[in-house]
């Protein structure tokens, strides 16, 4: 029998490979989708249909000079991208991609999975905040201040939208939550919670229309203005991996995870395929949003988070709790 740690190591290696490849092609897909929506063909010069574009981009990033500004705090400046990336990747330690009755589709099945998830994703902000702070330059500083404020105001709404699901599922294990959705996906009873989650997830990953942290038109490139080469690439990877993470969470908590949709359970397709399709749809939604919406004004963003998202999420939580309490 192979020892557990070997299995975990192999799984981790495979998962890392899968996630990085997904990142590369999510980036290409985003550029393609954005292009189509803006009546452009998107990248199509490198390889057939532009399929080698990620490789070209990676080669470019690796070959670029790695600059550290004179005013930067060198240690933290160099460390920050790794904080972002490490937290982004470590979430995948507990995300199950299929029913774990066979125990093969997740690295670890943590009981308090959802808590672990929230804890880890919150640490990811440190990468952005510290990176911006340690750059020793004004635009990154503004970007990191915004990141902090934005994360605090949206993390609350997000957590509250999670709790609605937790009440319905009665468990914090991701596997259990998906299992509880065998009959009804939580998106139906928790529609409000789902909408809150979608909005906060976009804000959480600093994507358009909540990309105040990067805000090219105002802050040059926000927190990663001073970063170049591979270190910028790491932030870039972290952003996309975070997108993937919130897409995974959306499909696990609200869209039934690996359960087949529309009563297609009889179709002999492995659950992981359904899961991947759901995640892909959510990723597409991200790109779609980016092609459609302009950036929020900063004060509006804060007002929206505190005055709209938070009350709605709280109300949703209270109503859910009351209904569950009375129905037993």
């Amino acid at each position, binding site marked *: 029998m192979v020892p557990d740690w070997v299995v975990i190591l192999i799984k981790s290696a495979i998962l890392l490979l899968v996630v990085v490849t997904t990142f590369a092609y999510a980036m290409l897909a985003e550029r393609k*989708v954005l292009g*189509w*929506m*803006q*009546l*452009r*063909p998107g990248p*199509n010069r490198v390889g057939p249909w532009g399929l080698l574009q990620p490789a070209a981009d990676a080669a470019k990033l690796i070959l670029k000079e790695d600059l550290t500004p004179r005013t930067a705090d060198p240690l933290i400046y160099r460390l920050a991208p790794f904080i972002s990336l490490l937290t982004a990747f470590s979430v995948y330690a507990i995300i199950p991609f299929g029913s774990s009755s066979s125990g093969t589709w997740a690295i670890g099945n943590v009981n308090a999975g959802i808590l672990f998830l929230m804890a880890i994703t919150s640490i990811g902000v440190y990468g952005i905040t510290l990176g911006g702070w340690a750059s020793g330059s004004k635009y990154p500083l503004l970007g990191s201040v915004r990141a902090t404020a934005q994360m605090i105001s949206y993390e609350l709404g997000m957590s509250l939208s999670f709790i609605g699901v937790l009440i319905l599922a009665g468990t914090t294990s991701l596997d259990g939550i998906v299992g509880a959705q065998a009959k009804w996906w939580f998106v139906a009873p928790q529609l409000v919670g789902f909408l809150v989650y979608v909005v906060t997830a976009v804000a959480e990953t600093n994507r358009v229309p909540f990309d105040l942290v990067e805000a090219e038109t105002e802050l040059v490139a926000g927190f990663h203005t001073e970063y170049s080469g591979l270190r910028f690439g790491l932030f870039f990877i972290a952003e996309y991996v975070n997108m993937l993470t919130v897409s995974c969470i959306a499909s696990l908590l609200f869209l039934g995870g690996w359960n087949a949709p529309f009563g297609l359970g009889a179709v002999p397709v492995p659950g992981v395929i359904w899961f991947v399709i759901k995640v892909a749809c959510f990723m597409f939604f991200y790109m*779609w*949003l980016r*092609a*459609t*919406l302009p950036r929020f004004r900063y004060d509006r963003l804060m007002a*929206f988070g505190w*005055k*709209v998202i938070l009350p709605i999420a709280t109300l949703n939580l209270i109503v859910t709790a009351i209904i569950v309490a009375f129905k037993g």
Partner: protein
Amino acid sequence: MRKQLYNVGAILKGLSITFKFMFAKRPTIEYPSVKKQHAPRFHGLHELRRYADGKERCIGCELCSSACPANAITVIGAENSAEDRVSPGERHAARYEIDELRCIFCGMCEEACPTDAIVLTPRFEMADYRRGSFIYAKDRLLVPPEAGVGIAPDDRPNGIPSDLGRVADIKSTTDVDRGYGATHRGEILKTQRRGLAALRQAQDDTK
């Protein structure tokens, strides 16, 4: 808050528009491999023409140079000698240089030319790395003897010369067909001449 909720409709509308655009026909012309059909009267790189016997049309009169609003043309004329006849008349251009970076491609040199020697071709891909290489002298301007006499201004091809590659099939974006097709300069001039000839013929007949 009411106002912000109200905006949800606008967001959905925006999303539907972008989604529709995803399947719309894209106007992109993938330039190096596909080329847009230029207007028939497009003014590109110059060409110095010859007569059918190989003699140069340019007589070194410098009218193009004085007509040029950008002072891009330098002509230095010289006498033809009996041993060395470059052009049919008395004089020819010993040097003929156009600074294509100064040129504004207005075509006034072409209009000024009494012998139809200088013509603007539709070629436009002249990019280079050095400024000096944009000064086109006779070695590059003159039609090579083996390449014929060059294109007469009125017979400029309606389209891209075959050496410039495939022509994009554009139907809607710039309305090349509708906008430019009707004003093909050569066609118009030919029609006008035909009309004039017919008029003269009719006058002769009545006499």
